[in-house]
């Protein structure tokens, strides 16, 4: 009995130790970065580096550009993924493994291969897109949609799993609804939390993306801009890293908050 009680205590100590090590691994570089970013002025702590970063017009323009690309990616991705995932669950369940494999491609094919492929195919007729800025933006969003597929598809598919889409679809059909009404009024609203979580993941990924953005639009995007600042100016680079980290966390918290609220709803749906 005594020993039984002692064993969990030792286990708990080990758990705490592992947590502590993990925490150090995570926080030490972060604290070091924050500390370094505050030392742009010699001898004192100051927010000079942050002021410089935020007052650089290229920061705002790169940030807004990437945010726009991220939002476009969300819109295109959701329009593509939600009906597809819905239809596969409803009518083509035998195709699920195939689609899941396709959505995992970005993990197998590196972004650099994807972007070179895109550039090769779309830099000559009949599909010439790389000669205009709009064209490259289209390519960029298309590339991002592929890149975020694993996250978006999985989030939406899990959301679909949580609701009985077959019966809801049949109920709507028996009430006279066609496919457009079913998808827009039943499927989308009930997937809200899943779509939101997929959307926030998409935004965080796109905001920091470097490879595709470098080759297609260069410094106009936030990723390449961050990378260049980091290479050229040490303190500003550190400040930018902290800002980007804070933004990512803000998005994650927002997602957690929305997700938890929606989860309350999901649990209630589960009790049907």
């Amino acid at each position, binding site marked *: 009995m005594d020993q039984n009680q002692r064993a969990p205590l030792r286990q708990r100590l080990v758990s705490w130790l592992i947590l502590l090590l993990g925490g150090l691994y995570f926080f030490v570089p972060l604290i070091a970065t924050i500390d370094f970013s505050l030392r742009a002025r010699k001898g004192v702590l100051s927010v000079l580096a942050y002021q410089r970063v935020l007052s650089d017009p290229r920061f705002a323009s790169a940030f807004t550009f990437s945010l726009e690309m991220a939002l476009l990616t969300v819109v295109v991705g959701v329009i593509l993924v939600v009906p597809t995932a819905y239809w596969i669950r409803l009518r083509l369940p035998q195709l699920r493994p195939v689609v899941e494999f396709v959505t995992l491609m970005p993990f197998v094919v590196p972004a650099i291969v994807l972007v070179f492929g895109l550039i090769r195919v779309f830099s000559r007729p009949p599909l010439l897109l790389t000669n205009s800025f709009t064209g490259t933006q289209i390519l960029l969003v298309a590339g991002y949609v592929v890149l975020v597929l694993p996250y978006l598809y999985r989030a939406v598919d899990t959301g679909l799993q949580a609701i009985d889409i077959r019966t809801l679809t049949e109920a709507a059909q*028996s009430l006279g609804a066609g496919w457009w009404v079913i998808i827009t009024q039943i499927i989308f609203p009930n997937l809200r939390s899943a779509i939101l979580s997929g959307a926030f993941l998409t935004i965080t990924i796109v905001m920091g993306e470097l490879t595709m953005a470098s080759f297609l639009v260069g410094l106009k995007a936030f990723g390449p801009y961050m990378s260049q600042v980091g290479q050229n100016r040490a303190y500003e680079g550190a400040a930018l890293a902290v800002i980007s980290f804070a933004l990512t966390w803000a998005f994650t918290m927002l997602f957690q908050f929305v997700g938890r609220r929606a989860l309350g709803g999901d649990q209630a749906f589960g009790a049907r």
Partner: protein
Amino acid sequence: MAYLSIRNLSKRFGQTLAVRDFNLEVERGEFVSFLGPSGCGKTTTLRMIAGFEIPTSGNIILDGADITFLPPNRRHIGMVFQSYALFPNLTVADNIAFGLKVAKRPPEEIRKTVGEMLDLIRLSGFENRYPYQLSGGQQQRVALARALAIHPRVLLLDEPLSALDAKIRVELRAEIRRIQQTLGITAIYVTHDQEEALSLSDRVVVMYEGKIEQVGTPFEVYNYPQTRFVASFIGQLNLIPVIVEDPQHGLVRFGNFLFQVDPAPHLNRGQAVTLALRPEEMNLGRVEGRNHVEGRVLDVMFLGAIVRVRVDLQGREVLADLFNERQLALPRPGDQVIINFPPHACWIISEG
């Protein structure tokens, strides 16, 4: 011609024939149940009427028009599901209004119909609740109102009470019948629960392995089953092997006991047949004009209104259901008893 007419309907899923040669005529305002064990094809048949499954062969004719291949959203047939299937993102009022909004009815009419439906299901005041804020029974009433709001030509109910507690089930059962009769709506009800089917329906369709076994009023299918399956599936049945002694006068022998049954001239003297009768026809003691047989009590189950006595008749177990009364002297296991039953209660199943 009948209001709803189902002709030679069959449905094949791969190698299995889920429904075979199903024929049924349903009159306007009739309440018909499809009753059978799981896998008997009752739900598949219902889903073909709803339009969710396309028949392999056969036709479904509703109000003079062939709807066999019409998409479900153009059939104007209401459906209530076992899992309620309320739209989780919509309030009670919006759920009920859904079909009317899809049909682009004027807002004034929608509001009026929703109010009427809430009155009908006795849930006025619940219009702004969400489905997850309702109990199972309330959700199923809302689902019923939602299906009825579009004034469907036929109401289909797919095991609507299976997910509910026993007490709620009985209450809602009465509610469904009341609403169906108030509106005079044609209803088809799928269930594996014989009590539901018998208590609700004008007619019961008993199905087994994709085929109709018998169609009839609850009284007919219970008291005059036409197949061995119907006899054994609906209600309890005592089976006693006997030898035909005199077919013209309806005399059969069970060991040393001679039973008087209905004359059965088609049988031969000396033929081995099975006597079937319901437990409620069997009683204890001697009563003039009845058949008698001796047995030993195995056990006694007190079920409230009924006392079910299991009796051993020379190695053959039978059940006798006695009505409870306060003066009843309950038999005890091991007691030797005399069982009586009336001649007309028995029907004869010839083997093979």
